[in-house]
């Protein structure tokens, strides 16, 4: 944060800034030198901030009308939909907002995987990001329970029952989580409490995530270290702010399309049936963004094994910076890894697909193949490819490839027309 010293113009501002350097912080954020070659995959950080704020604001309003009680929750949601002014809009923004949040976070994570943003010196940014992602999943899961429909109830039953797989103390832990001997009113109450808490924890982690980002500065599509500030960078404002604003607006158009024209397509119709502990739905499925992990869970015949594997699928990402042995960050210059990256994308999409299907026949086979590949990618492919791969020549600076144009064939690959 030492590009240049910021000196407030007025005496009053200087007095305040000497005591709490908020103006220095503002100046830092405005001037923050950002690589000028960031493509649109880099706009999802800003989009995610928008998603978080949207969820918090709509959530606070919903909480003013929602009643966290097993007998009243479903009716209070209908009350919001029918009697609260624009309640339907606020609720649909909140419920679709969760899906949009996850869509954006998955793009953000895969962007990081493609361009090696998790690698040194950005490991801590990556780990904080994963903690945010974990909290997001917890918040989304508990939020889905609150309307107290059939999928709420049975989803909560399935997920909380996972903890009963823990040897010896599993059942006690599950009872403790429920606050009862089954998913019931105490469960709903505590889920509401935690659902309200978690977004603020996420907000705190987002501050740390951005702070950690501002120490080394942004990675970029070329993946090289750049001098800051230099002719390779632009000040964050107005260059990046306007670009983020444009991308955010495109994102909002799609968001609005869901909210206004097909607000229930990402949900499950069974969740408009009030929770009934005596009737189990034919297929209990989580929301789409949890399906790949659901597929991994169900691919193992043993319950404890499935739970361990499912959690490992997330926790393996925490050690990714040390599993990747490549010295080159960006997959643009990694011809072999780049192909494995896309195979991983397809693998995760396939796991999501089979997660929505019954765990039988071909779907079970696909789930198992997909699960094995998922782990092979991180445990075997990442270290081995990074070690053996012959990478393409890397430019010395961001400006260089722009100046040399198409002379270097490796720089003109698809999806990176700005390199």
């Amino acid at each position, binding site marked *: 944060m030492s590009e240049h010293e910021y000196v407030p113009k007025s005496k009053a501002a200087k007095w305040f800034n000497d005591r709490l350097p908020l103006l220095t912080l503002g100046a830092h954020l405005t001037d923050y030198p950002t690589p000028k070659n960031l493509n649109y995959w880099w706009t999802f950080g800003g989009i995610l901030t928008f998603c978080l704020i949207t969820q918090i604001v709509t959530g606070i309003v919903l909480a003013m009308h929602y009643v966290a009680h097993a007998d009243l929750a479903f009716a209070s949601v209908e009350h919001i939909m029918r009697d609260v002014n624009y309640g339907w*809009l606020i609720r649909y923004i909140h419920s679709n907002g969760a899906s949009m949040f996850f869509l954006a976070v998955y793009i953000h994570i895969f962007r990081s995987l493609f361009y090696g943003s998790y690698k040194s010196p950005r490991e801590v940014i990556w780990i904080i990001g994963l903690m945010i992602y974990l909290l997001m999943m917890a918040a989304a899961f508990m939020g889905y329970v609150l309307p107290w429909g059939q999928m709420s109830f049975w989803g909560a039953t399935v997920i909380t029952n996972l903890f009963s797989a823990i040897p010896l103390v599993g059942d006690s832990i599950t009872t403790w989580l429920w606050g009862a001997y089954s998913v019931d009113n105490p469960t709903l109450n505590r889920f509401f409490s935690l659902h309200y808490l978690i977004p603020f924890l996420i907000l705190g982690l987002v501050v740390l995530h951005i702070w950690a980002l501002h120490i080394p500065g942004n990675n970029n599509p070329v993946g090289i270290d750049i001098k800051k500030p230099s002719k390779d960078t632009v000040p964050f404002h107005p260059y990046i702010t306007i670009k983020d*604003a444009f991308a955010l*607006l*495109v994102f909002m158009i*799609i968001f609005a399309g869901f909210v206004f024209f097909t*607000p229930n397509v990402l949900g499950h*119709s069974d969740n*408009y049936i009030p929770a009934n502990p005596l009737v189990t739905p034919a297929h209990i499925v989580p929301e789409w963004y949890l399906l790949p992990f659901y597929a991994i869970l169900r691919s193992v015949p043993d319950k404890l094994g499935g739970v361990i594997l499912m959690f490992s699928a997330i926790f393996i990402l925490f050690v990714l910076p040390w599993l990747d042995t490549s010295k080159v960050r960006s997959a643009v210059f990694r011809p072999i890894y780049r192909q494995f990256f896309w195979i991983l994308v397809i693998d995760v999409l396939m796991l*999501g697909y089979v997660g929505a299907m019954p765990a039988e026949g071909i779907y079970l086979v696909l789930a198992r193949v997909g699960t094995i590949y998922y782990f092979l990618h991180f445990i075997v492919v990442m270290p081995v490819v990074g070690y053996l791969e012959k990478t393409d020549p890397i430019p010395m600076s961001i400006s260089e490839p722009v100046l040399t144009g198409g002379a270097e064939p490796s720089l003109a690959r698809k999806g990176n027309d*700005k390199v």
Partner: protein
Amino acid sequence: MIKSNIKLLVLSFLLLISFRPIHSAEMVDPIKVDWSFKGLTGTFDRASLQRGFQVYKEVCASCHSMQYLSYRNLGEPGGPEFSEQEVKAIAASFEIEDGPDSQGEMFTRPGKPSDKFKSPYPNVQAATAANGGAYPPDMSVLVKARKGGANYIYSVLVGYEDPPPGVTLDDGVYYNKYMAGNKIKMPNNLMDGLVEYADGTESTVDQMAKDVTTFLAWAAEPELEERHKTGVKVIIYLVLLTILVYLSMKKIWSRIDSEV
């Protein structure tokens, strides 16, 4: 660049939507009806909503509750839009339990527009017991609570058939080709001419099924018309703003030698 990114975004959304869970394979796909409320600017057919309410009131309401609706909803914009007098008269035709009064006694009085729709049974258990062990579901959000939505509800209403050979049915169970498992405990209540429509429309089974389904679709999504109208405005606004911001971005980035 922008174009290919947008394409990718759209593609990811299509993928999302295709991740819909499947249902049991026994039932036939519901009939596709060209509802007036489908599509980006869909609205409800006012006359059909009013007829549908009549079918609900005279046929369905003897077993099915609609506990989340109030009589006043019948007069609100985007719904059947009965006049204020009609809504008052409809509400007043029901005896609503109120109280306790100053003596601690419950009493009944004629309904008011602010009252919720009167339920036919005091509770779920009573409804279940009176209907051969099958609870007639509350219909407030029924269209949203069934895969296939309005098409499915309509299909079940017109999907009663004699069971195919080899299928035996218990007493009080009926064969319906659109129902999951093909067995339904609701008898086929619709027959031609059952309801005498106030507007003189011929009350065929198909007409009544369509009208009452339209009514139920509105009941599940009373905000639909406003949602569609607002949505069109919001999208137009966002598109215009996006164009302006895009042009500003081009202008700002033209100051340096880098492309955006």
